[in-house]
């Protein structure tokens, strides 16, 4: 039976997460359809049509779906669910908001943050912030799951799926009021290929400027440990760790971070980890591929000069 993938988009562009979830769907095997629920979202539809492995793009274009609210988008997905054995979405703020509602309405369990597909009903997912991996077999007739996109490669843009317009418009009682996206030239923590993170060793919020310079040079995002956030150096939304963001960039540069369990849980799946810390005993060196025991206030500007 077919697989339905809920597209991750902002009405204007399709997010890479969708291409990655399509890869997960392809690994399950079956006809892959993508649902684009939004408003004036033609560009996102076109992008979805081009994803390799997708045979059909369902388009629910209505003002009701403009903000992609969980309340009514979940009902839309449930209306379509009869034709599908799997319903997938990226484990993003939209997917995590919407899919549990879908699962509950279908009276099935949800499998969250899948990182590996073993068969059409068996999946691997991290628990305890990645300190353990659970292999879970679904007993439900329909499998509803969110996919951690960093664990899958993006599907190529070589497809040409047909687009089918849906006329289902379902209202929500929730009103969209406003949205303020962080205007930053730097990439988002969740999607960044490189992350430069600072810890308590930074000493102050002002000192983060040297990390920002390095980040800008590398096209990187800036992160922080909980210690740096708790000390008031930087806002909470920069926090990488068990209770913050869980990231897996190609390169993670930990500066002045000791490596508390809390922090390691959020970044240890990074492909390459660099640690710069003046304490050679810091636990961060146990997970670092490259460790440099040095004063960060000398090492970071030097690094900035060389990259």
């Amino acid at each position, binding site marked *: 039976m077919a697989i339905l993938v809920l597209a991750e988009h902002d009405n204007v562009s399709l997010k890479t997460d969708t291409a990655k979830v399509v890869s997960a769907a392809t690994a399950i095997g079956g006809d892959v359809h993508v649902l684009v629920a939004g408003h004036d979202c033609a560009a996102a539809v076109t992008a979805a049509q081009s994803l390799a492995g997708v045979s059909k793009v369902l388009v629910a274009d209505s003002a009701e779906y403009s903000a992609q609210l*969980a*309340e009514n988008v*979940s009902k839309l997905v449930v209306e379509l669910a009869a034709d599908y054995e799997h319903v997938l979405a990226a484990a993003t*703020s*939209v997917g*995590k*908001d919407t*899919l*549990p*509602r879908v*699962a*509950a*309405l279908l*009276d*099935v*369990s*949800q*499998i*969250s943050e899948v990182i590996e597909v073993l068969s059409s009903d*068996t999946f691997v997912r991290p*628990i*305890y*912030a990645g*300190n*353990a*991996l*659970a*292999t879970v*077999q*679904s*007993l*439900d007739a329909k499998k509803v799951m969110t996919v951690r996109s960093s664990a899958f490669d993006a599907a190529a843009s070589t497809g040409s799926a047909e687009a089918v317009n849906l006329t289902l418009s379902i209202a929500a*009682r*929730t009103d*969209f*009021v406003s*949205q*303020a*996206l*962080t205007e930053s030239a730097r990439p*988002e923590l969740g999607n960044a290929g*490189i992350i430069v993170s600072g810890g308590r060793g930074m000493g102050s919020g002002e000192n983060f400027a040297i990390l920002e310079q390095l980040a800008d040079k590398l096209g990187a995002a800036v992160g922080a440990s909980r210690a740096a956030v708790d000390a008031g150096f930087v806002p*909470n939304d920069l926090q990488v760790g068990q*209770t*913050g963001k869980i990231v897996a960039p190609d*390169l993670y540069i930990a500066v002045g971070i000791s490596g508390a*369990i809390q922090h390691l849980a959020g970044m*240890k799946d990074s*492909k390459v980890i*660099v640690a710069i810390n003046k304490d050679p005993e810091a636990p961060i060196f146990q*997970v*670092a*591929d*490259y*460790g*440099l*025991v040095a004063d960060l206030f000398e090492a970071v500007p030097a*690094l900035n000069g*060389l*990259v």
Partner: protein
Amino acid sequence: MKVLVPVKRVVDANVKVRVKADNTNVDTTNLKMALNPFCEIAVEEAVRLKEAGIAAEVVVVSVGAKAVQEQLRTAMALGADRAIHIETDEDLVPLSIAKLLKAVQEKEQAQLILFGKQSIDGDNNQTGQMLAALTDMPQATFASEVKLDGDKATVTREIDGGLQTLSMPLPAIVTVDLRLNEPRYASLPNIMKAKRKPLETIAVADLGVSLKAHQTVLKVTPPVDRKAGILVSSVEELVEKLKNEAKVI
């Protein structure tokens, strides 16, 4: 207005868990347990609503073995008025928890249900949204600000890349994120006082909810250990390794 806060007992966030040798689960024997950090933020928010004169009563509820009463007492020491313990020794999936909570809500008729956005053990991030679906309530997940005005809630949410504000009629479900507040520490007098606050225990069977098995955990394994890295002696060597060996810059 009544606020209901479902909470969970979890392994303390500062404890590193290990997988059991037989790969059936993580070993939680003798580990320090705590109120799930996100649930603690939800309790704090509910208590602040009461202190602000908006909420009349804060009720906490937890599903689990007898030991969860410890966390219910903690929540009451933080300021919750009373607690409900739904007793079961079974390890239930979020959907089953949501069904039990639905039965509690039918009785309690809370106007606002505050959840932590996820528990730090199962990392499911589902229960609040599922209860919202089962009760057909509006929801706002990952809240960093909650404002109540009459029968309306206006909630600012942490979404990927920024903030989003939604408004919705009550009753509604809000799941909370880190930035919402900083929970207080329970004072000793409040810890003592919490021991005398009402705690009702209900057996799962008495809620009249039929639950079923949804999934089997085939095994739990430790993540692949990272290979031991190397120490470099200078920034120059680091840059050279990153460029030529790791090829990441």
